């Protein structure tokens, strides 16, 4: 499977100038062949969740049919095999992020849980009354609320770095937010509502010069932008499996081992201890200290398969293809009279948010759905972003490497139809 990807045909596919053979790749995703109400599926909701390749489905299936058992404790063969597969997935995630050690990879339910873990463990230990936490104005609710909860509890202050009308972070303003009470920075790598690809190197640099650690919310980035945590020197990085062609219910929190070592556990339970008496509990070593209870074993194994699949295609190649497609889609959609793009940063990835004058995004979504076109409409769990741009909601198309120019054309045609219906 992997080798087939590695030697992906050099001939350009009909729908792109890059060397990705998208029509061949689409065959790896069984769901894409489906008809929706008799229409071919045009799936453009990849920022919500991505579709799963057969390799991921097979990996999960074979775990359940061949070696389903609990991990880290059984002496029997099945348990050993499951443990190996699960721990192999951890190593795959380690390599994927280029973490120094596999114990720096904590399996969690998803990005949301990863951020909550850091807020509740690192945050509660290091943020006190009068201290400050910096986020940005383009965050998903899951990178706002955990910090709000922490700040409320600790009487600390949440500072918000502003963005400009294109949806770009104002780096100067961000830098001005720092003072002697700044304890933590948590910022999206790629904005889910705007598609902005943040200048993470500068963001981290500014914080590190003041010895403030940084968490990057990689939910929208990990599947589309190459991440090297050592090179970036970021302190925490979080992403979700299901936005990376893997299953839901599993994700990764990367943390520098020195930070993770010093942090208290997030949840108590089995697997996170090394010994328990009623008087005292000794916590397990990393990463298990943060993995209480039986984890999502199938999910972890599925995520490992997804990482393999993506590596097989080549993340950089996939990204180049997606960027090309995003540029194509941006030109096409921006050219439709009455359409306004929300999020026009110079550096973007995969997300195309827009509104149409006088037509609510929900109506756009319903009409497109009748043609089998799946997009997301609403506030995208980023209400402050909607407020910033003065819209109640947007329509959002988000791309993956299995999307084609033909699908973008279908979307454009669909938007014309929406306008036609409302202009009657």
């Amino acid at each position, binding site marked *: 499977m992997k080798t087939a990807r590695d030697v992906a045909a050099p001939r350009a596919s009909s729908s792109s100038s890059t060397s990705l053979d998208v029509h061949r790749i689409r065959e790896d995703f069984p769901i894409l062949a489906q008809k929706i109400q008799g229409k071919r599926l045009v799936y453009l909701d990849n920022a919500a969740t991505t579709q799963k390749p057969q390799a991921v489905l097979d990996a999960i299936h074979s775990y359940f049919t061949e070696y389903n058992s609990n991990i880290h404790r059984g002496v029997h063969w099945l348990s050993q095999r499951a443990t190996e597969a699960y721990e192999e997935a951890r190593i795959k995630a380690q390599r994927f992020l280029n973490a120094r050690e596999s114990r720096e990879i904590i399996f969690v339910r998803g990005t949301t849980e990863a951020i909550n873990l850091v807020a509740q463990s690192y945050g509660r230990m290091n943020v006190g009354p009068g201290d400050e936490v910096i986020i940005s104005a383009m965050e998903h609710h899951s990178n706002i609320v955990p910090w709000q909860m922490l700040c409320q509890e600790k009487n600390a202050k949440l500072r918000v770095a502003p963005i400009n009308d294109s949806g770009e972070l104002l780096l100067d303003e961000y830098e001005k937010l720092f003072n002697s009470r700044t304890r933590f920075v948590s910022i999206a790598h790629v904005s889910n509502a705007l598609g902005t690809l943040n200048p993470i190197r500068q963001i981290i640099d500014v914080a590190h010069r003041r010895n403030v650690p940084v968490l990057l919310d990689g939910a929208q980035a990990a599947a589309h932008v190459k991440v090297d945590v050592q090179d970036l020197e970021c302190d925490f990085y979080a992403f979700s499996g299901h936005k990376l062609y893997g299953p839901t219910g599993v994700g990764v929190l990367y943390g520098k081992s020195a930070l993770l070592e010093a942090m208290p556990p997030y949840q108590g339970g089995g697997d996170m201890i090394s010994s328990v008496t009623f008087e005292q509990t000794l916590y397990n070593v990393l990463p298990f200290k943060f993995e209480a209870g039986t984890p999502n074993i199938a999910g972890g194994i599925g995520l490992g398969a997804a990482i393999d699949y993506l590596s097989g295609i080549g993340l950089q190649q996939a990204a180049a293809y997606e960027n090309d497609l995003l540029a194509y889609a941006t030109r096409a959609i921006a050219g439709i009279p009455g359409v306004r793009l929300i999020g026009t940063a110079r550096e973007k990835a995969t997300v195309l948010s827009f509104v149409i004058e006088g037509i609510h995004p929900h*109506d756009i979504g319903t*009409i497109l759905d009748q043609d089998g076109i799946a997009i997301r409409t609403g506030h995208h769990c980023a209400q402050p972003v909607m407020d910033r741009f003065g819209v109640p909601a947007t329509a959002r198309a988000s791309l993956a490497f299995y999307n084609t120019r033909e699908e973008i054309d279908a979307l454009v045609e669909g938007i014309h139809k929406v306008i036609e219906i409302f202009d009657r």
Partner: protein
Amino acid sequence: MSYLNDLYQEVILDHNKKPRNFRELKEANRKAEGFNPLCGDKVTVYLKLENNVVTDISFQGKGCAISTASASLMTESLKGKTRVEVKKLFEDFHNLVTGKTGGLDAELELGKLAVFHGVSEFPIRVKCATLAWHTLQAALENKLEAVSTE
């Protein structure tokens, strides 16, 4: 396409573009806010209730075509109705948009509101169509004096 035409009937598109009774009602003695956290739609319903009769009603807010038109047509349909009649009309309307038949009498009662029958083909949009009605119910029940100076 025919389902779409059923959903986005001309009357609905017209009320979306030019919503009726779209204003704050200064004389209101009941008011409630409703919102759909899933999509961010917001509506405020203002009500003037005298001796259990809706003597005036208006709304404000932001929403999709279905929720805006529904609020607009609701305000048009309710002026002069008693609480009991309002309750019955909401039941009939709810049945209509969820695809339950309320019988010929119900349909006649609904009058203009019958244009929302197309919603039943789009279960996900039922919430849009009923947001204003749920908000109205809250306004009727919790007796908040919107214009109270207390």
